C-alpha cells in the first residue's frame, strides 16, 4: 500500500495544501493580531475569491486577470465589511465579534449559492501550467507544483509588507501592544481597514489560485476555515511565521493521513492540535499575550 512514489506525491500534495493554508491563515492571523477580531467569515472570503476569479475568467478567459480580479474584489469586500460593520464591534465583547462575522459568513455563502447555485464550477489552470510534469521519479500535475510557487511568492510579498514597510511595522507593533500603538498618535483605524483588506485578500487570492485544483462550490470555505483554525492554534495566534509553520504541518498531516484513510485526517489534525495545546498552549511560535 505504501509505495515511495505514492508517499512522495502525497508529500507534495501536503506541501501544496500546506502552502495554501499558510497563506489563508496568515490573513486570518494578521487580522486577529492587529484588530483583535477573529473573522469567522474568512472561509467565505476564500470562497468568494474563487467565485470572483471565476466570473473574471468567464469574461476575460485570462487566468492572470482572474487572479487579480478575484483578489481585488475580496480586498474591496474586506474593506467595505470593516468600514460598515466590523468597526462597530471593536469595543464589543469577543462573542459578539464571533457572532457577527459568523453571520456574515453565512450571508456570503448563501448569497453565492443563490447566484451560482450549489453546482460546482470549474476554472481551468492556465495554459502554461497544464498537464503533468515528469519529476524523474514520478509524474505530478504541473499546476499543483505551480501552486506551491505562486503561493510562496504571495507569502514573500506578505513578508515584505509586514517586515519591510512602515505599515508592516505598525501592524507588528500593534500585534505586540495595540494600546501603545494607539497612543503613539497613529491612526489605528485606518491601519485596521488596510489590514482587514490585506488579510481578506490573502484568503481571496488563495481561493482563486486553488480553484483549478478543486472545483468551486459555495461551501468550499467551511472546511478550509476549520483547517485554518487548527493551523492558527498550532502556529500561535498573531504569528506570521507560526501561520506558515502551522500551515505546512497541517497540510502534511492531512495529506499523509489521507493516504492511509481519509476518515482519520481530521482526527490526526486534531490530535496534533491537542498535543500543541498541552505542550505549548500559546502555539509553536506564539507569544503569551492577546487572548
Amino acid at each position, binding site marked *: 500500500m505504501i509505495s515511495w512514489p505514492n508517499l512522495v506525491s502525497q508529500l507534495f500534495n501536503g506541501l501544496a495544501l500546506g502552502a495554501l493554508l499558510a497563506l489563508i491563515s496568515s490573513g486570518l492571523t494578521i487580522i486577529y493580531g492587529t484588530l483583535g477580531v477573529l473573522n469567522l467569515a474568512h472561509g467565505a472570503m476564500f470562497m468568494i475569491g474563487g467565485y470572483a476569479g471565476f466570473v473574471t475568467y468567464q469574461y476575460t478567459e485570462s487566468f492572470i486577470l482572474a487572479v487579480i480580479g478575484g483578489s481585488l474584489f475580496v480586498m474591496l469586500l474586506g474593506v467595505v465589511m470593516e468600514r460598515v460593520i466590523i468597526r462597530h464591534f471593536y469595543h464589543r*465583547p469577543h462573542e459578539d465579534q464571533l457572532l457577527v462575522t459568523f453571520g456574515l459568513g453565512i*450571508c456570503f455563502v448563501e448569497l453565492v449559492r443563490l447566484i451560482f447555485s450549489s453546482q460546482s464550477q470549474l476554472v481551468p489552470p492556465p495554459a502554461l501550467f497544464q498537464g503533468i510534469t515528469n519529476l524523474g521519479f514520478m509524474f505530478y500535475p504541473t499546476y499543483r507544483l505551480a501552486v506551491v510557487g505562486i503561493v510562496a511568492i504571495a507569502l514573500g510579498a506578505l513578508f515584505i509588507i509586514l517586515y519591510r514597510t512602515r505599515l508592516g511595522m505598525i501592524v507588528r507593533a500593534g500585534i505586540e501592544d495595540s494600546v501603545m500603538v494607539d497612543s503613539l498618535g497613529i491612526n489605528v483605524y485606518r491601519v485596521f481597514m488596510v489590514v482587514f483588506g490585506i488579510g481578506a485578500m490573502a484568503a481571496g487570492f488563495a481561493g482563486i489560485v486553488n480553484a483549478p485544483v478543486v472545483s468551486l462550490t459555495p461551501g468550499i470555505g467551511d*472546511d478550509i476555515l476549520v483547517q485554518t483554525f487548527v493551523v492558527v*492554534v498550532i502556529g500561535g495566534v498573531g504569528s506570521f511565521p507560526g501561520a506558515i509553520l502551522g500551515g505546512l504541518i497541517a497540510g502534511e498531516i492531512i495529506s499523509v493521513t489521507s493516504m492511509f*484513510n481519509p476518515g482519520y485526517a481530521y482526527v490526526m489534525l486534531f490530535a496534533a492540535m491537542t498535543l500543541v495545546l498541552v505542550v505549548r*498552549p500559546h502555539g509553536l511560535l506564539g507569544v503569551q499575550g492577546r487572548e
Partner: protein
Amino acid sequence: MLKQRPLLIETLTAIGLIVAPFVLPHLGFAPNTVNRILVWGLFGLGFDILFGFTGLLSFGQSAFYGTGGFVAAYLLTRAGFSNVLGALIIGMIAAAATGYLIGLIALRRTGIYFAMITVAIAEVFFFVEFNPLSDFTGGENGLPGVPTPSFNLGFTTIHFTNGWSLYQFIALCYFIGVIIALRIVRSPVGAILSAIRDNPLRATAVGHNIHGYKLTAFVIAAAYAGFAGGLLGVLQAFMPPDAFTFDTSGQLVMQTAIGGRGTLFGPLVGATVWLFLQDFLQSALGLGAAWKLVLGVVFVLLVCFLRGGIVGGLVDLYGLMSGKRPRKAAETEQAEVEMPRQAPPAPMHAKEVEHPVYSGPILKATGLTKRYGGLVANSDIDFSVDHGELRGIIGPNGAGKSTFFKMLTCEVAPTSGQIMFEGRDITGLKVTEVCQLGLTKSYQVNQLFTGLTVRQNLTIAALAELRGKFRLDLFRSLAGVKGLTEQVEHTLALVNLTRRADTPVSELAYGEKRRLEIGLALATSPRLLLLDEPLAGMSPRERVETVKLLKSIARGRTMIIIDHDMDSLFELVERVTVLQEGRVLVSGTPEEIKTNAAVQEAYLGGVHGEIAA
C-alpha cells in the same frame, strides 16, 4: 424583577406548555414543528448556561448532540434495548462524559481560542461518525427505526406515538429541563458562572477555581445536548447523521443569539422564529433556498442592533415602560445625602485562624526578585509584617510597588525568593488558593463584575469564603448558603453601599466603585488585606470617607496599603516601607520617614524628579 415571586417562571412555563397544543395549531404550527422547537429549546437550555451565563461561546455543540443521539439510537435499534427513557439518559451520560474529556482540552484556552478549538472538535466528531464508526452509526444512512417511548404503569400502558401525543412526552422533558436549569442558574454555582463571564480575573482572585466551574458548565451543556440529541432520534424515528454537522452547532448559536442569550428561554424563542420563518419563507413566499440568506441577514442585524436578542429586547422594553429609570436617579441623590449620617457599622471579623499556635509575623518575604527579561522590577526584597499591623508602602512611580503586591498575592510568580504567610510557604501557589488561605488584594484599577449589581458582586466574593474554591452545589439556592446574607449585608454596610445594593455596577459613581472594589476584597474575610492605591482618583471628601472606612476595617486585621496620598497614609498606618527602583529603601514610622534624607532624595531629586500627589 421576577425574583420576588418564587416558582413564577416554572408555573408560567407549565401553563405555556399545557396551553400550546390548543393555541399553536391555529397559528399554523404543525405538531411536528412544535416538537422540533422543543428539542432545540432543550438543546439550547444547556447551551445558554454555557454561552449566555458563563460567556463561553462554543461552536462545537453538535459533537455532544450527535453523541447523545447516536448512543441512544444505537441502544434502541441495534442493541435490543427497549427502555426509551433509559436509553435517552444513557445517551445523556455518554455526552456528558465526552463533554468532560473535550472540556479538559478546549478549556485550556479562553475567548477566540476556545471557539476555534470547539469548531475543530465538532468537525472531528463529524468525520469519526461518518468513517471509522460507521458500523455503529450507520454512516451517512443514520440509524432508522428509533422507537417512541411507552410507560407501563401496571394497570395501563401509556404510549407516546407521534404528533401531539409525542408532544406530551417531549414537553415534559423540556419542563424538567427548565426546572433543572433554573435551579442551576439560581444556585451558588450559577452566580459564579455569571461572575466568570463578567470578569474571570477577579473571579479567580476572590478565590474561585474558575476552571472547575467552566468545566462544569461545559459538561452541563453537553448533557443537555446529549439528551436533546436522543429526543431528536425519537421524534423522527430515525437518527440523522447531520446531527453531527457544523451546521447544527451554527444553527444553535444563531437561534440562541436571535432569541436572547442569558435568558434560558432565548433558544426556544430563537428556534420558534427560525423554524417558523423557514416554513414561511419557503412555502408562503416561495423563496426556496434563499430562506437561509434572509435568516442570516436577520441574524446579523440582530447582533448589530439588539444584543440581547428578542427576549432581551422585550425585557428592556418592559423596563422602559415600567418607568425604572427615574427612580434610579432619585436613589442616587438620597444615597449621597445619607452617607455622612449613617452610624458606623460594627467591624467585620476576619476569617478564623487555622493555626492558632503560630505567632511569628503574618507575612514574611525573603529575597523576593522579579525580572521581566532585562528589566528588574523587584530586586532582593526582604519584607515582614506582624499580626494586626497596618503597614504603608510608598515609592515613586515605577518603584515596583504593584509588582511587589502581585507577587505577594501570587498573581505573578517571583523569579526568586520566598513568601511565607502565617508560617506557610505560599511561593508558587495560585492566587485562588492564597485567597482561600486568607490573603487578598483590592486592585489599583477596579476589577468589578460590571454586569452585576452591587449585592451580586459581594455575594460572589462571600461565596468563595463560605463554600471554598470549588463545590458542586448545583441545586442549592443562594438563600440556602449559611451566613451568606449576613456577610453580604455586613460588607455592604461597612463600605457604605447598602442603599445602592441593587444598583448595577455600571451605574455607580467612581467613588462608589472604589468602595465596592475594597468591599470585594473584604467580603472574602481576609486576615491579610493588601490595598493597591485605594485612594487613587478620589475627591478630597471621598478620601476622608475612605480613610475612615479603612480604619474601621483594620480592626482585627492586618493590612498593607500602597498609596501616593502621603497625608492620608501617614495618618492611617503605623509603619511605612519605601520602595525605590525595585528595592527597599528604608522602613520606619511615619515620623522617621518624613524626615529621612534618602526618602526626600528619592522623591525630589535624582531622575525620578516627581512629587507624588
